[in-house]
């Protein structure tokens, strides 16, 4: 049974970290570890969550956690899983928490390799849609039109000209046993997926939309609301891929794409045509 707010593990495995106030990424990590419990072994590459979790001597993980190379999240997970198995350790979930850059750009090859080998790991990408801890540079998962420091908005070019990579389809194309999108705006759905994934064998992949107040230009108390809105207006649909088929797990409640974009400072320069482009593209994908 999926835990609820009342039944979930009361222990805090990610606590006292230095993430910005209202950080969606830290909520992603905190909730996953509460589901996976004290025997989870976490791997974090360079990125926000390692930068805020390991500030020696301030170490914010209660369970075993280790920093990997930026490119090597999945390969370190492979090694840890093999090592734990060799030592006869049981009931340990090897879980990775990598950002969008560490997953879709820099760590993609290692993830692809693990998927090819079919290692028994749980890979969680917290997607805040840019390289946030280094100061908001564009990643392969930055959406069209978003202003970052490397895709500035000016008179001629209005933010990022590229579309966001579809990581769920990339992972599904490897024939993964389980892959899903999730959002910190729908924690019940996310918790169910973490628990389900932990019980399956092979490479499980979760892609979690985790808004960043600092990089997105939203208030620190709007993280959850904006993450929910992204699902409801159809820009970030919640899917599950299992047994070769995709299934939608949360029906979008509807809502204005324009309102959702315009409340974020990173999209404030967009013209009506840009918003129309995003709307048409969304419709063509679903």
């Amino acid at each position, binding site marked *: 049974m999926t835990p609820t*707010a*009342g039944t*979930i593990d*009361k*222990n*805090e*495995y*990610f*606590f*006292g*970290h*230095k*993430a*910005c*106030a*209202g*950080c*969606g990424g*830290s*909520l992603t990590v*905190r*909730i996953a570890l509460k589901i996976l419990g004290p025997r989870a072994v976490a791997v974090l590459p360079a990125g926000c969550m390692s930068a805020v979790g390991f500030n*020696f*001597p*301030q*170490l*914010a*993980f*209660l*369970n*075993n*956690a280790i920093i990997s190379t930026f490119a090597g999240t999945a390969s370190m997970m492979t090694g840890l899983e093999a090592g734990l198995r060799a030592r006869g350790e049981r009931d340990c979930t090897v879980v990775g928490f990598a950002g969008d850059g560490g997953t879709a750009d820099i760590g993609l090859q290692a993830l692809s390799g693990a998927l090819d080998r079919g290692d028994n790991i749980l890979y969680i990408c917290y997607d805040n849609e840019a390289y946030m801890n280094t100061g908001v540079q564009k990643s392969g998962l930055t959406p069209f039109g978003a202003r970052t420091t490397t895709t500035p908005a000016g008179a001629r070019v209005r933010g990022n000209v590229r579309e966001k990579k579809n990581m769920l389809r990339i992972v599904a194309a490897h024939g993964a046993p389980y892959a899903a999108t999730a959002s*910190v705006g729908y*924690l019940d759905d996310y918790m169910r997926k973490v628990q389900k994934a932990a019980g399956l064998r092979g490479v499980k992949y979760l892609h979690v939309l985790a808004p960043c*107040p600092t990089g997105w230009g939203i*208030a*620190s*108390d*709007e*993280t*959850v*609301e904006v993450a929910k809105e992204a699902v409801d207006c159809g820009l970030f649909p919640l899917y599950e891929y299992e047994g070769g088929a995709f299934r939608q797990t949360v029906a979008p409640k509807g809502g204005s794409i324009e309102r959702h974009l315009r409340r974020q400072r990173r999209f404030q320069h967009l013209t009506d045509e840009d918003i129309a482009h995003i709307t048409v593209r969304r419709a063509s994908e679903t």
Partner: protein
Amino acid sequence: MRKPYLRQAPGRELADYPEGTAYTAGFLTAKNAGWRSVRPVLRAEKCVLCLRCYLHCPDGTVYESGGALAFDYDFCKGCGLCAKICPLGAIEMETEGA
């Protein structure tokens, strides 16, 4: 409830530092309270302990204690998510030092 907790920071001598790259998990040496300009305050008469605030806190600083909601003010950063997510308006953000 177990969670990382505050301890004495290691000294400044070389011998106080680990030889390898591993160290004690859940080892905190500094609070985050100084980040905060507003603090969550509970209106207990409105709270029904649905724990939505507890679930959604990115810092894990909202918790249930003895049948009532409590905040860990040493580590709350004052983001205001708990107040925003409360369906009953049972949490208000008050300016620090006011």
